[in-house]
Each structure stands twice: as structure tokens, then as C-alpha cells.
């Protein structure tokens, strides 16, 4: 038992820990003796509510809506993974097993909220209103891609939903989200927040520390949404950190924190919605650690069976699939907002739609060659090319004019 002696008025408080009490006992704070942070869950894998008295803010219509996004995402992933294997696009990343995490968290965002994503958040973009065709145009880097064909597949950008360009160097999006949150605090006080998606692996980067620390000290309205899916490419989370996940770090920064079941669509929705309220109304950063399992390989460049068993992956697929979990709930006789017939009809239509979008994206012309040189500098409203860029463009034009027949110029938009 610690003997605690309160500071008397004559004692000076250390400025770095003003509320710390004095103790005569030499006791180290041993993290192994601390309680492990619990995981917030509403819906169990069987489709039953953990607490029958839980009041949900989500409507039945919304649940069906989000379920459809999850199925769309999964269908898209299946088709695009195969398309990559057939050599029809260079690279792809699926969200298998993590559909609830991205779809439900994206769904609670509002008009002015800013999105800083990592790379496995296509579900959030769908929930924010990006169409499958938008996604497909990006994957195929065609002339309808909002990034003008400049970014590798999955690196989406879309001004309409305030989605900032995805940054390949991991975790740089964390300080960006904080900076944008600070800007929102100044320009749209108590109206909007930014959300920053990051994997548990990227939380080892220094940017994580820097971003959370400044978000806390500057009181920025930002949601740090950590997807803890167990693996950073091949590095298992147990090799990534020693402490109690990522959530345990939040209190150290003075940030309100919650750990949630990322495979539970309802928990992700309700928790992220509550986090947004806290961030927007009180100008506070919030840390969410969503526990899930990456059933897919890291990307199409990875073969995860080199470092984990197929048995492990199959177990997650069979016993804790976020899509089937919410479907079980939806098809409960007392809920009854979905049926096998609707399922079959929707899956069939979705697959057809996605294949159509793929064909359109494949057939759409590539961005105009002149756009190689634009948007390096925003001068004169972005219309003016700097002399050295103009010079390069003229050189390319000359070469193309001289050797026209050697290039497939018909593939590019004029």
C-alpha cells in the first residue's frame, strides 16, 4: 500500500508534473501490472447484442446502406485482385477482413471533415460518396482520375470528399491531419474535424509521436483512427510494440482514447461518431484503436503465407468475418432488414456493375501528355508553366511530332 503525502503549500510543484503527489515508497510503474484496455463491442460474432439495452443511434436504413458498401468493397477487392494477377493493373491492396473498420468510420464524417488516409481505406471513400467508377479510374490512371494518373493504384485523392493525396511514406499523414485540424479550428470552429487513418505498424514512426503530441498541446479537433490488423506487411504486431497496443499510448499524450472491435460495424460506427462529437464540440483529439485482422496479403506484392499460416487466416474468415457478423444481425427474425434473396440479388448486381466500371476505366484514354508538366507550381492560378517546364514540354512536343508513328498517341486524351 502506497503512503501518499499531499504537497503542502510551502512545497513547490514541479512544472512538468504539477499534480504529482509525493511518496516515500520506491515503486516503479510496471506496465505489466496495469489492467489491459478493454475492447468496446456492441455486436458479437454470432449476431447477438452484447448488451440488449444498448441504445443505437444508427438507423436500420443506414445499417443496410453500410452493409452494401462492405459487400461492394469486398466484391471490388476480389475482382481487382484477380485483375492484378492477370496483369491488367500493376498493384492493388485489398481490405479483406477490415471492411467494417473503413466503411463505418467513413460513414460518420460530415461535409467539411478532412480525410488523411493510409492506403486501406477504400471503404471509407465509398461511404463518403466516391463511386466505384471513381475508384476504378484511379486504379487505371486514366484521364478521369482526379490525380491525373500521377499516383500509383490505391493512392486516391478527391477534393469533393476532402480526401487528401495518400502519401506513400508511412505516417506523414498524421501531422498533416493535425495541421488541417488546427486550420479547421481557426476557420470553421466547432463545425468540422479531420480524421487520420493509420496502421499499427506506422504508429512506430516518429510522426505518430509528433502528431499526437502537438494535437494534444494545441487542442486540435482530430480523430486518430488506428487500424490494428495484426500485421505490418510481415511484422506481427507483437514485434511492433511491447505495450498494450496503440491505445495505451493515448493517455500518455493526454488524449482521450478508446479501443474498439473493428469487426463490429455497429461499434465502429457508434464509437467514431461519439469521437467526432468530442473532437468537434470540445476541440479535442481522440484516439481510436480498432482491433481487426488483415485477412489479405499486405498488397499484391506480398505473399503472407511465408510468415503466417493459412489455417490462421481461415480461422478469422470462418469465425469473425465483419461482413457475415452484421448480416447475421440484419437477418435475425426480430431485426429482419435483410434476406437471402436481397443478398443474392445485390451481390449479382454489384459484381456486374463493378465489371462494367472496370471495362469503362480500361477503355478510357490516358491523361493528356501535356499534363506531365502542369501542376508542378501553382502560378497564375496554375495556368502558367515555368520556363524550364515549358522548355521540356516543347522538347517533348517536337519529339512526338517527329516520331509520331512510334508512339501510341491515340491512347492518350488530346
Amino acid at each position: 500500500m502506497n503512503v501518499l503525502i499531499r504537497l503542502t503549500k510551502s512545497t513547490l510543484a514541479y512544472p512538468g508534473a504539477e499534480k504529482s503527489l509525493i511518496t516515500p515508497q520506491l515503486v516503479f510503474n510496471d506496465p505489466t501490472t496495469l489492467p489491459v484496455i478493454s475492447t468496446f463491442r456492441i455486436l458479437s460474432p454470432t449476431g447477438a447484442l452484447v448488451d440488449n439495452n444498448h441504445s443505437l443511434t444508427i438507423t436500420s436504413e443506414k445499417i443496410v446502406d453500410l452493409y452494401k458498401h462492405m459487400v461492394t468493397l469486398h466484391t471490388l477487392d476480389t475482382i481487382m485482385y484477380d485483375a492484378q494477377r492477370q496483369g491488367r493493373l500493376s498493384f492493388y491492396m485489398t481490405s479483406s477482413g477490415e471492411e467494417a473498420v473503413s466503411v463505418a468510420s467513413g460513414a460518420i464524417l460530415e461535409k467539411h471533415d478532412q480525410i488523411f488516409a493510409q492506403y486501406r481505406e477504400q471503404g471509407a471513400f465509398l461511404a463518403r460518396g466516391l463511386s466505384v467508377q471513381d475508384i476504378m479510374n484511379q486504379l487505371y490512371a486514366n484521364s478521369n482520375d482526379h490525380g491525373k494518373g500521377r499516383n500509383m493504384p490505391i493512392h486516391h485523392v478527391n477534393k469533393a470528399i476532402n480526401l487528401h493525396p495518400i502519401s506513400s511514406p508511412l505516417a506523414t499523414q498524421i501531422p498533416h491531419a493535425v495541421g488541417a485540424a488546427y486550420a479547421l479550428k481557426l476557420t470553421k470552429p466547432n463545425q468540422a474535424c479531420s480524421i487520420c487513418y493509420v496502421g499499427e505498424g506506422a504508429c512506430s514512426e516518429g510522426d505518430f509521436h509528433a502528431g499526437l503530441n502537438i494535437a494534444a498541446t494545441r487542442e486540435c479537433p482530430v480523430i486518430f483512427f488506428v487500424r490494428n490488423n495484426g500485421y505490418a506487411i510481415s511484422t506481427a504486431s507483437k514485434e511492433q510494440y511491447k505495450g498494450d497496443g496503440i491505445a495505451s499510448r493515448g493517455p500518455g499524450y493526454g488524449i482521450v482514447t478508446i479501443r474498439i472491435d473493428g469487426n463490429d460495424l455497429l461499434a465502429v460506427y457508434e464509437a467514431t461518431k461519439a469521437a467526432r462529437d468530442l473532437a468537434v464540440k470540445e476541440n479535442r483529439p481522440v484516439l481510436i484503436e480498432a482491433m481487426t485482422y488483415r485477412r489479405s496479403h499486405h498488397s499484391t506484392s506480398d505473399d503472407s503465407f511465408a510468415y503466417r499460416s493459412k489455417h490462421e487466416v481461415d480461422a478469422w474468415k470462418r469465425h469473425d468475418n465483419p461482413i457475415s457478423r452484421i448480416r447475421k444481425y440484419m437477418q435475425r427474425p426480430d431485426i429482419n432488414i435483410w434476406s437471402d434473396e436481397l443478398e443474392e440479388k445485390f451481390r449479382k448486381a454489384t459484381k456486374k456493375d463493378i465489371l462494367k466500371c472496370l471495362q469503362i476505366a480500361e477503355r478510357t484514354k490516358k491523361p493528356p501528355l501535356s499534363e506531365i508538366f502542369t501542376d508542378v507550381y501553382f502560378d497564375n492560378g496554375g495556368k502558367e508553366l515555368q520556363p524550364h517546364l515549358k522548355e521540356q514540354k516543347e522538347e517533348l512536343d517536337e519529339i512526338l511530332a517527329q516520331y509520331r508513328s512510334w508512339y501510341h498517341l491515340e491512347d492518350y486524351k488530346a
Partner: protein
Amino acid sequence: MSVRDALNTALAEEMDKDDDVFIMGEEVAQYNGAYKVTRGLLDRFGERRVIDTPITEMGFTGICVGAALAGLKPVCEFMTFNFAMQSIDQIINSGAKTYYMSGGTQVCNVTFRGPNGAAAGVGAQHSQDYSAWYGSIPGLKVVSPYSSEDCKGLLKAAIRDPNVTIFLENEMLYNETFPMSEEAMSTDFVIPFGQAKIERPGSDITIVAHSRNVEFSLKAAEILKEKYNVEAEVINLRTIKPLDVPSIVKSVKKTNRLVSVESGFPAFGVGSEICAQIMESEAFDALDAPVERVTGAEVPTPYAKELEDFAFPTPEIIVRACKKALYMEE
């Protein structure tokens, strides 16, 4: 007006003019900046716009980029550009490239500023010139001012410029005073990027320099005039990117000889780029001698004054390089 006051005035005027401009960095608020460039700004503009940060370059650099992506116009102060190495990914991969990567939809108006290059007696990790590093990146604009007028006009231009600007100051110049023209005292005074300034006209040889080396080059030009009756033309580059190649070409066509002066390391440096640009221009045919480069020594900067003094250009070294280009025997 001192260089420090010119920078301070530029910041205050731009913050006054535009509410979206704010400044962030270590010690910029309460302490008025490590070199007092932000003196008085906290009192005048308050803590929402003059922000002391925790010690994390990558953090506050990224936050400035993020705030710019959301529409503000941050000025990010580095205590020295040597420390910006810890955040160079944020400057280059995020700051410089986002406008392009976003398909021209996400403008990123940030000004990164602070002292650059060698100061005095601060050793290897505080004494490096980053002009060439940043000068090689598409999407960045790089400014290296010399006088108070340069500092005021170019910093205001940098803050107004909708792109990412690297503004490389020099600690040794902060206390130096320069006369300011009436025009330069105006709140509307801005100096456009990409326009070098002829600090001293001449007909016999062209010396191209930036930042503090403009001062050494002007001293060298005086020595050349006094001792050898040589009229050197001294060009102050003002901006590294865009580089005002036409002004150098024009001068070389007149003088037929060229010396570049910088404190950066010689390899892949500003001087190297100038040599290449001149070779690729019509000025090559006008050269009567190979271009001479005066640079810092290619060693990490030593601390001991007796050693450090040998590591950087001096007026005497510039004179020697000019004499070589003029084929004048020692």
C-alpha cells in the same frame, strides 16, 4: 535597417494583411525566436497565430503542410535549416509534391524559413548550406537573400506565393544593416522570384553569388579594382530556384569570364548547376576562360576557428579565382 528587422517587418506586414498567415516553430512566440526574428509578433497577433511548438521538426513541419492543405498560409521557422533535415520528408515528399499529386487541386502555401549555411563556431551539424539540396526538387521555390531589401521583398513574396518556398537566411547577416529605398519601406514592396540583381556593374569578369557571399564578392570586386584595375560585375542571385540564368548569360556575354561563389559543398552544388547552365547556353561561346567555382571545402565543417576559417570562401579566395579566370599571373 538590419536584416533581422527587415524580416520581422515582412512577417508583421503579411500577418496584418492576411489572417490566414500564421507562424509556427520552436521558441518563436514567448522567446521571440532563437534569433529574435519574430520579436513582438506574439503580443501583436496572439497565440493562435504565433505558435511555440514542442521540439519536433517533423511534427511541426508536417502540421504546417497539413494546415496549408486546409487553406492556411503557414510560415514555419526552423531554428536552423540543419534541423530541417529531421523533417525533410515532410518538405519534399509532402510539401513539394502534393499539388502535383493531387492533380492540381490541393495548393500548399507554406514558407519554410530560418538560418542556413555556416554561422561561426558551431561545428559540423550546424554549418551546412542546403541551397543545392532544395534547389534540385521540382515543386519547391528556393530563396537565398542577401540585403535587408532582399529579405523584406522576398519574404513577402514567399508568403504570398501559393507554392512551397524555402527561404534560406544567414545568421551572420541578421545584425548587418543596409540602406532601404523608399519603395522598399512600403507595405506593398515585393521582389519577384527568379530575378537576380546586379549589385555592382562591371565589364571584365562576372562574379555570381548568393546570401553572405555577395558581401565577400563585393569586397573582392573592390580589391580587384584597387589592385588590378579589374572591373568585376557582381550578381546577387536572390533566388536559387527559379535560377535567373538569363541574367548570368547576359553578363557573361559582356565580360566573357565567370566565377561562382557559394558556401555549400562543391559537389553537385549551386556552382555546378551554374556551370552546366552556362555550357548549355549561348554564353558558352562567349567564355574566354573556364568557369571558376569558389565553394566551401568538401569536409564536414570543423569547430576550431583556425580550422573553420579555412573551410569557407573569403574575398581573397574569390580574388584568386578571378585572377585565374583572367589569366593573371600571381
